[in-house]
């Protein structure tokens, strides 16, 4: 890839010319198709049948994968280690959750036509202003992108303008998500406090408890992942992507050749936050709840582990990492829950010390070895 001229195609279509993207999209859509077929076409008793629970689980993994792609965009290509992407994910999730809460209507426990149950419980008289409009799907869906985008814009504007980067940025992003977690735990915030938002019923008229809706959400998440991946790929293969890499490796130099580094950082950071918000919005209807624990610093830093394990600055590595770690988590917490934190901690240490390029790095090394092997045999024949 490095040894070619930057292509002259339009930036959005550029990724389709890459082999890595073609393979990735191929694998992703095959997986979506296989799961759908095994779920729909095979009878319940068949050993290959994928049940609704598993479909739901895969859907969750895919939304995590999208989140990981968003983190890889800023960390891998821009060198900004955000320890607060969980916050953007959660805000997107809350925006979706608010829409789903409003969709419950008067079917809640207290039967109030407008107010969600927790507000009735807290004796609130009317809907707070920031809950207005969330009964309309288009508004809520716009907010899924705009709310995290706005937060990233304000925060990033302040941070990048003052050239807060590196470890400092990591620490203050962590403080940001921590502060938000504390805030969302408060009942007075009007987001359901400790319990968050839950007991959802339907999304766009589809019953969230039906298996078909679950399959639909799974497929939608897969498509969103594909689109997010292509968008990120388009960004990193554009000239802007090369400016990002330049910024990552030599920020001062990039400034001296005339790029307003802080604006580029801000732009990519905001795009990434919006993708994270979208991932959160797809996650919430699948797990049926959103609460402040998604803001916890541990979750945000875990996302970074997914990316590190999969391999930084590859995008597909982030997807692999997210799925691997979360699959391991599902297995571990089922079999030996106490061991999970040990395993997670060990992964952090091992990946950073022994596997700095992640799984993707291993794959690439292997392929290169095969290629040079082939070259060797060719030479020998010649």
């Amino acid at each position, binding site marked *: 890839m490095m040894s070619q001229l930057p*292509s002259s195609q339009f930036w959005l279509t550029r990724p389709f010319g890459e082999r890595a993207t073609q393979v990735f999209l191929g694998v992703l859509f095959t997986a979506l198709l296989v799961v759908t077929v095994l779920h729909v076409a095979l009878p319940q008793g068949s050993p290959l049948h994928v049940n609704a629970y598993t479909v739901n689980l895969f859907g969750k993994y895919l939304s995590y994968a999208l989140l990981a792609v968003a983190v890889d965009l800023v960390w891998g290509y821009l060198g900004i280690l955000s320890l607060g992407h969980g916050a953007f994910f959660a805000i997107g999730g809350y925006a979706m959750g608010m829409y789903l809460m409003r969709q419950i209507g008067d079917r809640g426990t207290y039967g109030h036509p407008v107010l969600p149950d927790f507000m009735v419980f807290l004796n609130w008289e009317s809907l707070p202003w920031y809950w207005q409009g969330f009964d309309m799907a288009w508004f809520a869906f716009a907010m899924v992108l705009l709310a995290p985008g706005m937060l990233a814009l304000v925060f990033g504007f302040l941070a990048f303008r003052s050239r807060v980067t590196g470890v400092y940025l990591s620490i203050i992003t962590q403080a940001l998500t921590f502060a938000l977690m504390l805030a969302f735990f408060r009942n007075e915030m009007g987001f359901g406090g400790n319990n968050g938002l839950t007991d959802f019923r339907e999304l766009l008229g589809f019953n969230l408890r039906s298996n078909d809706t679950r399959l639909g959400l799974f497929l939608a998440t897969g498509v969103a992942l594909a689109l997010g991946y292509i968008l990120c790929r388009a960004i990193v293969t554009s000239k*802007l992507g090369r400016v990002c890499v330049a910024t990552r490796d030599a920020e001062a130099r990039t400034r001296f050749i005339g790029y307003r580094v802080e604006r580029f950082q801000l732009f990519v950071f905001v795009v990434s936050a919006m993708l994270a918000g979208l991932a959160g919005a797809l996650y919430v209807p699948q797990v049926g709840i959103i609460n402040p624990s998604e803001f916890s610093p541990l979750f945000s830093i875990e996302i970074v582990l997914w990316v590190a394990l999969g391999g930084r600055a590859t995008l597909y590595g982030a997807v692999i990492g997210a799925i691997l770690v979360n699959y391991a988590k599902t297995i571990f917490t089922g079999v030996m829950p106490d061991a999970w934190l040990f395993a997670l901690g060990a992964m952090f240490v091992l990946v950073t010390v022994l596997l700095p390029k992640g799984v993707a790095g291993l794959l690439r090394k292997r392929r290169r070895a095969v290629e040079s092997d082939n070259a060797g045999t060719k030479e020998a024949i010649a």
Partner: protein
Amino acid sequence: MSLLQSFKTRDRVFDFIAPAASPVDVRHGPILYMEDVTVSFDGFKAINKLNLTIDDGELRCIIGPNGAGKTTMMDIITGKTRPTEGSVWFGSRHNLLNMNEPEIASLGIGRKFQKPTVFEVLSVFENLELAMAADKRIFPTLTARMTGEIKDRIDEVLETIGLTQLRFQPAGILSHGQKQWLEIGMLLMQRPRLLLVDEPVAGMTEQEMERTAELLTGLAGKQSVVVVEHDMGFVRSIARKVTVLHQGSVLAEGSMDQVSSDPNVVEVYLGADDEEAA
């Protein structure tokens, strides 16, 4: 410069009248004009009442012992360091003290660092592509396409710096000298009016040095070039006019011969280093 101050200095065009993006005005000769510039770090004056004028198209060498303030002077011109006092003008229209690094860069001042910094994971070609004078705002950068014109321009510079063979290699694998040339090439892509070159031949072999001297003298005339260098042999081989800095201000200025016969210079600088100067 605040509005009030701009009223006080009656010899200049008001800042708000002069369009910021207007081309450099060199009708009056100098392209760079520094007056009474002082920088102090915690009381230590790295630059002390420095006055320096560079003419358009000139090739100027700046020499001076360690700590004379050469790098700090470059930092001031490129906007990295703000002086405590003084004024710095680019042409007779642009007050550099009101601008930040990218603004100054896009005005046409290019800088090569002491330690070569190129973008190591990007290819030589991509390094030049990024440096090229172009619309460097976000969306034009995002949607930029590779045209034949751009390719030709990059190829031309590749030829000048002699890296055509290595164009698709990552810049990280280049030798030290090649990185220095790539950096000069990146400066050329910006089509600068003024090139600031910090120790271009440090760690180079004889042949590389010769090639660099050729490159820099070839540039002068089209562009103004300021070279900061320790290597006296190299300075002698390219210099037309030399400025000696000492303790943050100008000690002597003139041709290499004039300067090296100046008793002050001999005392503080050349005297300690006689053989190299000869």
